[in-house]
């Protein structure tokens, strides 16, 4: 027979690959639909300028979302993101005001983020405080502390060229978006290709099995929260650069957006399952919806309604698609 056929093995392979990524494909389809609809509705939506905005807004959610993915995959949750970002930004602003040289101020913020994250991690891993409670405590305490220290007024400091550069664009792309993309690469690598990353999945999937196989569960748990704190610090730097001042009230509700992006991306809140790519698409979905609705110019309250509906519908379609592909895990 001379008809060339795709080798059955090849077909099966491809099908398996696709089935394994049904979730991501579904989200991609949803994003494409959103682009189509918004592009048709509002002329400015597809402009390069607006795409850059989407990237920049995405960076605020994204950077924290990469870490949150690890946290949720490990079977935990970190709701302290928003206040932590604001608090660290305020502290860095105070440092800049002294003035401490920029690098030291930033390093100070990063160390602070690591410490605060680790604190939550230690409470969870060593003292067995549920992570929702531990980070709820931080959520309340950090927001209060930041507001108290600043009297809810912005903390300003002298202009700094490097910081301005961080808040600006390179080659037409926002620096924050570039940082987000680089960090995405790092997190994809860490989550797939390092012992630590796989240990996070193991701990979230079956902490007992992970322990029995010699994985230090306590360490992994502390680390994921420390990383979450670190990413909050990096988000804080981006925010500081963008706003040019430290604002205690900033990043309000960020934790909601971040967790929503991760969950929309298909990561299960019960742990063990999830992917960075899914989260990336979740971040895009959330950001595109937000941006597109503003551009379309409907009433700002109605935007909330539409956003809520779209998120549910997106996940609904995605679940239905994944189910049909037979992966009803």
């Amino acid at each position, binding site marked *: 027979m001379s008809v060339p056929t795709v080798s059955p093995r090849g077909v099966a392979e491809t099908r398996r690959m696709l089935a394994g990524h049904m979730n991501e494909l579904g989200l991609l389809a949803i994003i494409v639909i959103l682009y189509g609809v918004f592009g048709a509705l509002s002329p400015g939506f597809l402009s390069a300028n607006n795409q850059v905005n989407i990237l920049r807004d995405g960076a605020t959610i994204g950077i924290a979302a990469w870490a949150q993915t690890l946290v949720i995959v490990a079977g935990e949750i970190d709701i302290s993101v928003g206040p932590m970002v604001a608090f660290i930004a305020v502290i860095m602003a105070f440092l800049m005001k002294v003035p401490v040289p920029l690098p030291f101020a930033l390093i100070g913020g990063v160390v602070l983020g690591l410490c605060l994250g680790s604190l939550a991690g230690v409470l969870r891993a060593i003292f067995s405080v549920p992570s929702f409670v531990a980070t709820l405590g931080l959520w309340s305490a950090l927001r209060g502390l930041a507001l108290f220290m600043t009297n809810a007024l912005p903390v300003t400091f002298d202009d700094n060229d490097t910081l301005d550069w961080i808040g600006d664009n390179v080659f037409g792309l926002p620096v924050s978006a570039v940082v987000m993309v680089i960090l995405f690469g790092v997190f994809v690598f860490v989550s*797939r*290709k*390092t*012992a630590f990353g*796989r*240990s996070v*999945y*193991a701990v*979230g*999937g*079956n902490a*007992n*099995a*992970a*322990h*029995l*196989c*010699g*994985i*230090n*569960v*306590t*360490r992994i748990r502390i680390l994921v929260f420390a990383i979450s704190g670190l990413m909050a610090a990096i988000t804080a730097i981006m925010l500081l650069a963008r706003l040019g001042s430290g604002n205690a009230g900033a990043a309000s509700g960020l934790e909601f957006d971040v967790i929503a992006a991760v969950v929309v991306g298909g990561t299960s809140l019960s742990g*063990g*399952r999830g992917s960075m790519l899914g989260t990336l698409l979740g971040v895009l979905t959330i950001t595109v919806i937000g941006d597109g609705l503003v551009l379309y110019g409907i009433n700002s309250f109605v935007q909330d309604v539409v956003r809520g509906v779209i998120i549910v519908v997106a996940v609904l379609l995605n679940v239905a698609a994944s189910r049909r592909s037979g992966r009803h*895990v």
Partner: protein
Amino acid sequence: MTGAQLPVAELRSATKRYPGVIALDEVDFSVMPGEVRAVLGKNGAGKSTLIRLLTGAESADSGEVLLSGKPFVEFGQRRTREAAERGLRAVYQELSLVPSMTIAENMFLGNWPRRRRVLDHRAMAEQAREALRRLGLSLDPRLLTGTLAPAARQMVEIARAFLGVPRLVILDEPTSSLAAAEVDQVCNAVREAAAAGAAVLYVSHRMSEIRRLADTATVMRDGRVASTLSVAGARTLADTATVMRDGRVASTLSVAGARTEDIIQMMLGRVEQARPAHTSAIGKTTLSVEGIAMPPKLRNITFDLHAGEVLGIAGLLGSGRTELLEIVMGLRLPSAGSVRVRDEKIAKPSYKGMMQRGFGYTPESRKEDGIVPLLGVDENIVLTDFSRVTRGGVLSSAAVESAARTVVERLHVKTARLETPIVTLSGGNQQKVVIGRWIHAGSRILLLDEPTRGVDIEAKAQIYDIIRALAAEGRAVLFVSSEIEELDQVCDRVLVLRDGVMAEEHIAPSIDAERLLAACIG
């Protein structure tokens, strides 16, 4: 043999307490290189606890744990890793796989092959495939373990234990969900490892395997070592063994020709009474399965089940016995065929509908699908039918208690109190509760999938008795088991599922384990 050899693993008067129980009571234990040691004892005797001390999963309250003569260097969480690095591998009794990870990743859990600090997925898959092949498995190592049947998961864990060059392999009931062919593979692997100088600890409730495999056996009872003795007389450690009972020396046995009955007696601490041979009157047909097909596993399954009958289904692993039960219960959709209950033809069974027709079903994975871990024994029993324990829409504590007590007493469930969370019971007792809840529901037709998994000899015998007694009441039982030997003990009739059809039928009293096994393989 060099006399200077150190034990691979050793416990010196190790004690481990849990709230309310002393799991290990000043136990001395050691195992030498190249030795295959069986660890025997009833459910709750302390076997798994002993193992968890050796692997560093838990630390002893007092006493010493030595690996190759040296104590642990690390503390707490880090011990499991140290044990692994010192050549210890273990298959734990509870499945310790991560369902959302691939077979390959699970096999190297926590110890993934790396190239320049980066995980080498390709090498991992290769090595995993090779290790699986050595156990006669042709599974794709990239599959998620969560999608595997229990038996396949168990095999993956066993393959994990034989990776690399282990010095001590611990297998805690590795074959509880395996059938004969797989057990052979496991036995081969154990012998190979022992020949290469590794020590093997083998926990099992299946006496036949112990006889095939073990050089020596440690019998545990009530947290103490009752005796260490030679099983086959091949490479004996001692000519005599001391049997301890309740902390005191009870008797000394000659071990060269240790008989199974003696070993059982040591485990139980008493002589097992002979059970009366079962008889029950076979009644009318209650269930007819007609031409059920679900390619590629099931092609055309037809059989009848009668009231008062215990019908066994034998088959190799993956022959589709679980699927068959699930189809009958309405948990799965067949591509063809139907079931008939008494005179009613049911094209599309639904689970609830089958329950209402008096069906009861116990799944093969007790932990995942059977028990509600944190609920009490009583509530786990009444879960199948609340209406029997409600008075005017309100659950009556008295009714719950009496309903639960009836079942607990009838099935000899050993539990401190009725409201004890079921997860704290031994496996055998959990299984009795899972069966008992259908007695509570008054089911007339019971579909039992591997009901004796991980259950000790005594409890097994009790479960057989329960099943026979149920049949004697006129109930019908469909009994699926991978332990061929037990089929001839309980069943009136055994059907062999092979190549998607019921290939053979064996009728009591001419059911014979050897012939059944041959029939399964075909």
